[in-house]
């Protein structure tokens, strides 16, 4: 008996049946192949083709011609990815364990930034024109930790007051956090005003070095360093401590964790603390890197969303991958897009997201729901 022997029924009804399993599988890989081609072209373009006389003008030259520019762009991408990771890892941690989409994540970022700035100004004793030289490492780290702790406590309070008892109602929780962020944003505008503020890097990290003839700032490397330390700490916490194991187990099967005698409510609270703390750390770092102003909250909520959607919701590994991809596209697209079109880079960046999702609807490391 063979497939062709009695296709009369199916033939009439629909042509779809002519597809063999193999050809169906082949159909499914088409998007993957397309993405592969796009990536291959992008790599080829950056490495060899950009800014040649026979291609269009780009602001950075082909990597083999201008390795310095390439390296700087690469570092830009990586260091920015570091900051993205710190912020997004908190978001994804909370989502992973509790399925709570914390739409107040950006507001927490901004609040920590403001608190940090305020404290730093107090510590330095100056409210404006603070120079890096006046800022000791202490006067940077303490505001960062205090700012992060403040929002971490706020996060736990929000979770305990508003979210704890409607666990599992993800839309409702998302809206509650939206409401919190609306109130926070409005009150922050009142308390901290509308002007952009900035936290100042400590003098010890503000210096520059040369790589392949290009100047590069140590502060960016410092930021990447913090991100790596945060990443390692998170990894150690999740993989080498009992609490971390409980959290990972909770991501897999929360009910079973409870059946093993573990008080998940406490674990939830701690996770919310850590997740908000990371948002706060990111806030202080972001305020040093790019400043803080009304609207920064929404921007960083969005950044976090994009990173975790690319990487896969709830996955720390995904947050790393999402940050790196997002950071790279952010850095490379203005540099290697044709010069006349660099202002489309932000669309291009978001387009990456669409492409990733076309191939993997749950993100790079996301699990199917």
């Amino acid at each position, binding site marked *: 008996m063979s497939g062709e022997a009695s296709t009369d029924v199916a033939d009439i009804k629909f042509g779809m049946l002519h597809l063999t399993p193999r050809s169906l599988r082949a159909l499914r890989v088409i998007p993957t192949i397309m993405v592969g081609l796009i990536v291959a072209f992008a790599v080829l373009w950056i490495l060899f083709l950009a800014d040649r006389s026979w291609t269009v003008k780009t602001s950075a030259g082909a990597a083999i011609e201008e390795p310095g520019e390439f390296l700087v762009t690469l570092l830009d991408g990586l260091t920015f990815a570091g900051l993205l990771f710190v912020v997004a890892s908190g978001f994804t941690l909370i989502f992973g364990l509790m399925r709570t989409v914390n739409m107040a994540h950006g507001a927490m970022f901004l609040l920590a930034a403001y608190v940090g700035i305020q404290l730093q100004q107090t510590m330095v004793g100056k409210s404006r024109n603070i120079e890096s030289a006046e800022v000791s490492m202490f006067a940077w780290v303490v505001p960062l930790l205090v700012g992060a702790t403040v929002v971490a406590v706020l996060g736990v309070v929000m979770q305990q007051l508003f979210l704890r008892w409607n666990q599992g109602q993800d839309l409702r929780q998302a809206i509650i956090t939206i409401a919190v962020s609306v109130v926070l944003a409005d009150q922050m505008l009142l308390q901290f005003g509308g002007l952009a503020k900035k936290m100042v890097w400590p003098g010890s990290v503000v210096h520059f070095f040369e790589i392949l003839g290009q100047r590069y700032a140590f502060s960016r490397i410092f930021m990447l360093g913090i991100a790596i330390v945060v990443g390692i700490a998170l990894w150690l916490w999740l993989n080498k401590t009992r609490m971390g194991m409980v959290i990972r187990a909770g991501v897999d099967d929360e009910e*079973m964790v409870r*059946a093993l005698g*573990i*008080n998940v409510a406490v674990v939830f609270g701690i996770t919310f603390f850590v997740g908000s703390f990371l948002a706060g750390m990111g806030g202080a770092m972001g305020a040093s890197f790019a400043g803080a102003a009304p609207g920064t909250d929404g921007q960083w909520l969005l950044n976090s969303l994009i990173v975790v959607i690319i990487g896969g919701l709830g996955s720390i590994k995904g947050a790393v991958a999402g940050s790196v991809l997002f950071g790279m596209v952010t850095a490379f697209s203005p540099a290697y897009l044709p010069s006349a079109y660099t202002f489309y880079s932000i669309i291009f960046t978001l387009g990456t997201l669409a492409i990733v999702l076309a191939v993997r609807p749950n993100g790079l490391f996301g699990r199917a729901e």
Partner: protein
Amino acid sequence: MSDSVLRVDGLCAGYGASQVLENLSFEMGQEAVCIVGRNGMGKTTLCKTLMGFLQPSAGAITFGGSRIDGLSPDRIARRGLAYIPQGRRLFPSLTVDEHLEMLAKGTRGKRWTPAAVYELFPRLAERRQNGGAELSGGEQQMLAVGRALLLNGKLILMDEPSEGLAPTIVDTLIEVVHRLVEEGTAVLVVEQNLRAATSMATRQLVMVSGQIEIETTSHELSDDADLQRQYLGVDA
């Protein structure tokens, strides 16, 4: 009864409008007891209610002398009711070692520590670094048992432990149950595999439509084909 470990009185529970457990009662001491019954009779619902995942609509559950109905699952577990769920429900993200390590806190000096579990199941020790999803069915069940043992509880509740296991593994499991009872842990097994059920415990409670229909012994149940047909739908 002074040595009563678990006592269930007139338990009613269900999902929304549909009542699955209806006025279910039984009592057990420090022993092995099997609840047998066909699929769909409410066995798993009973487990979930005992563990606190489902709130009973009526009735009482007394465990170790105090009421546990209405408590949260983690508090019930901490009172000493350990649960081995149907389908094992291991954590795919955790290795064998991590499954045990995560519960190791406070086990020092108690009967069951991770080391003792590895001693009981040497097979697991070989697979320490494997993820929960990479184990065979038997190994998974061993890990699920080991995980429950670390609670050092008074009663272990097993939901369909023999499901999907090779007969030799089931034998190991039966042995473990006997050993646990010898060492002073009560075991409540919910089972539909008659062989496994009758080998694990002498007391057999037959569950039909959310109630304990009759209580019998493993010998009676194994020998009485009518009983099997009537309550278990097994036509031998």
